[in-house]
């Protein structure tokens, strides 16, 4: 790994390479012309490099700049590219040549009023002009032009925003021919709370609370990314004990969610014993988080500079006993579930996303690995405890519900082993360090492998070291389109199963 621009021949120069969790001076990121920027992004992304983030920052002088964060997973590098936004607030869209950019460019239009010219589908991403009373003027005659299929026998099924279960809101439009779904469009934004803007104008304690609630089931993941961003800007490193406890908390979060999802998948195919057993087992992992920090969701543990709580040696033995019991349960339950013909036959062949499609859409996390895209931030861009841990990401290739379920099972097994090992070797010492003020005109990019996949936080400061940009990319942002594509050619009755196999965050997408 090298942060020297001159050796970064693997990605097209002039681009600034960086390590995960490193803060750069904004002046060190070369400002390119829009043409060169576009060419450089497209070139890099044609060679196993992904677009991890695309956003707008205030420039060092007047005007705004477009920032692309590229992730080169094989060479374990991040690349940063900047271009000045033209004065007429238009630029040639990347999306026609790089589908991964579609959501980012819709966001740039919606939040910053910068038009990516030639974007095939520049419709709203989160804002609902009809519900917001015109504060966001519709761009065209229809505030949200749904994708429609027309012809004899075609019918449309609309679902949501309020759904039947205890879940978050979103609106789905299924274009169907008979029983076959040709395409389901997923319209989001109902959960849009304005989290990024609110974070910027809040005091520090509130900022952490907002980070923890960006996606409630990923409280640790987002709190960790936020804390790492602040540490990078302040040039601080958390103590060793904090790094270990952060890793333990992140993996407990992964365990609770993966195991819960396996139960929910059982429920959606009507295999209720699996649903009950996994549902109960999920709680065991939440309760281990509760034991450490007083919150089932790991809230209050991760703070900028370190962690708030330790795991006293007096309780480590009972912690490990509970973890081992959960390990045995996972083994037994998963064995029964994955050998139940009713489950297997329903999981297999449903909701397939091919490797090529996953690559095109820029999927991350469980969904990407299930389709054979070998990417995991913990191995590819390691920070903290993951620098000293050998990670072999779970792999599958069939790309369907079964693959996504199996990835969860394997990752859960890995996480238990990881937590066991880390608890047994938990170092003592300080839990946190005090942070100095953030550096002025600095830019920090942080990646965390949350349980769903890659979380990206981008933070930038002004001349006084105050935050001026805070951009959050939840893994759901990349993956919602993957769910829609997985449903093509399936049936509406496959939707709950497909949906649960991705289990994406509405709030995390809508922020």
């Amino acid at each position, binding site marked *: 790994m090298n942060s020297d621009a001159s050796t970064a021949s693997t990605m097209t120069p002039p681009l600034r390479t960086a390590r995960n969790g490193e803060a750069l001076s904004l002046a060190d990121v070369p400002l390119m012309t829009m043409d060169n920027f576009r060419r450089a992004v497209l070139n890099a992304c044609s060679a196993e490099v992904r677009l991890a983030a695309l956003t707008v920052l205030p420039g060092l002088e007047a005007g705004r700049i477009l920032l692309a964060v590229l992730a080169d997973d094989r060479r374990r590098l991040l690349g940063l590219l900047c271009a000045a936004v033209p004065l007429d607030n238009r630029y040639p869209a990347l999306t026609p040549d790089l589908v991964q950019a579609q959501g980012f460019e819709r966001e740039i239009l919606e939040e910053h009023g910068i038009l990516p010219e030639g974007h095939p589908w520049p419709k709203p991403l*989160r*804002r*609902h002009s009809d*519900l*917001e009373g015109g504060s966001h003027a519709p761009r065209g005659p229809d505030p949200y032009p749904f994708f429609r299929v027309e012809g004899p026998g075609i019918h449309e099924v609309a679902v949501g*925003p*309020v759904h*039947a*279960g*205890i*879940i*978050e*809101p979103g609106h789905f439009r299924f274009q169907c021919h008979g029983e076959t779904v040709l395409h389901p469009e997923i319209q989001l934004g*109902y*959960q*849009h*709370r*304005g*989290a990024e*803007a*609110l974070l910027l104008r809040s*005091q520090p*304690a*509130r900022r*952490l*609370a*907002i980070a*923890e*609630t*960006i996606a*409630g*089931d990923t*409280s640790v993941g987002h709190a960790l990314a936020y804390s790492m961003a602040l540490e990078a800007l302040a040039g601080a490193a958390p103590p060793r004990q904090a790094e270990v406890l952060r890793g333990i908390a992140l993996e407990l979060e992964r365990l609770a969610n993966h195991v819960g999802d396996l139960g929910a998948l059982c429920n959606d195919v009507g295999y209720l*014993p699996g649903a*009950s*057993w996994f*549902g*109960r087992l*999920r*709680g065991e992992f939440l*309760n281990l988080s*509760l*034991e450490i*920090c*007083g*919150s*089932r*969701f790991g*809230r209050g543990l991760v703070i900028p500079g370190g962690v*708030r*709580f330790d795991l006293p040696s007096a309780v480590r033995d009972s912690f490990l006993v509970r973890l081992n019991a959960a390990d045995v*349960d996972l083994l*037994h339950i998963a*064995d*029964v579930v994955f*050998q*139940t013909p009713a489950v297997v036959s329903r999981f297999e062949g449903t909701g397939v996303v091919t490797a090529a499609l996953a690559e095109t859409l820029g999927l991350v996390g469980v969904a990407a690995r299930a389709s054979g895209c070998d990417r995991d931030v913990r191995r590819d861009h390691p920070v903290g405890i993951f620098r000293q841990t050998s990670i072999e990401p779970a792999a599958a290739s069939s790309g369907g519900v079964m693959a996504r379920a199996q990835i969860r099972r394997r990752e859960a097994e890995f996480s238990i082993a990881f937590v066991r090992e880390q608890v047994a070797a938990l170092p003592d010492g300080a839990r946190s360090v005090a942070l100095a003020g953030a550096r002025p005109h600095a830019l920090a990019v942080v990646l965390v492998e949350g349980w769903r996949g890659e979380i990206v936080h981008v933070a930038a400061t002004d001349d006084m070291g105050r935050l001026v940009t805070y951009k959050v990319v939840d893994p759901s942002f990349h993956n919602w389109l993957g769910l829609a594509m997985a449903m093509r050619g399936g049936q509406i009755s496959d939707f709950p199963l497909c949906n649960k196999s991705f289990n994406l965050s*509405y*709030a995390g997408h*809508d922020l």
Partner: protein
Amino acid sequence: MRRLWERLRQGYRTIDFPEGHTDLPPRFRGRPVLDPSRCHAGCRLCADACPTAAIKTEPLRLDLGACLFCPACSETCGEGAITSTNDFRLAARTRRDLVLSGSEMRLASALDRKLLKIFGRSLKLRQVSAGGCNACEADLNVTGTVVFDIGRFGIQFVASPRHADGIVATGPVTTNMALALRETYAAVAEPKLVIASGACAISGGPFAGSPLCAGGIPADIPVDLYLPGCPPHPVSILDGLLRLLGRIE
């Protein structure tokens, strides 16, 4: 055969609630206890540390409706004027009852006799997430697992407001969900109940002050039961609902 064996191995997992002893770990942050006699004049450390401005000083007050149950206030106060207990009983019937000033709290009382006759033995609820981050939703969901088994009390979450006796709202009520929340509420037949679950639904929580959120359930939807927390623990939810139904006094 293996399935049967696994079923036996899994055993009986439902907690003995409310009769049994529900013990949450010592670090669980339940109801805070205030001791204003320990405050120094002019000290605002706890209020300044609070992420949601839930604390007022002189005299010391803590609004459980805005509280995220984070450790910020208790770790900042060197005098022990605010300490956390692991008491999970937190539900209240009025907004005012959520504002603590000492070590006592007026917990939720039961519905009146007429409503108890209607809802006491069967309460069907429709959940609406209006900007909830999925933590409140997740811990409402687990009340249906074998561990908490809310069904044994005659309470069930249903798929349609037309089947429901009330709604449980979560989230700070985003602009984009306000209409759906109102319509869902309107679709429930009278008499109906409204339960606000979590700091966001009660006060906006961490999202209070966002121009894209209403700061919790709007005034035209009257709330019958407040469940504070971020998110409320499943046992706190059970406790609140059973108090409302007069099963716990």
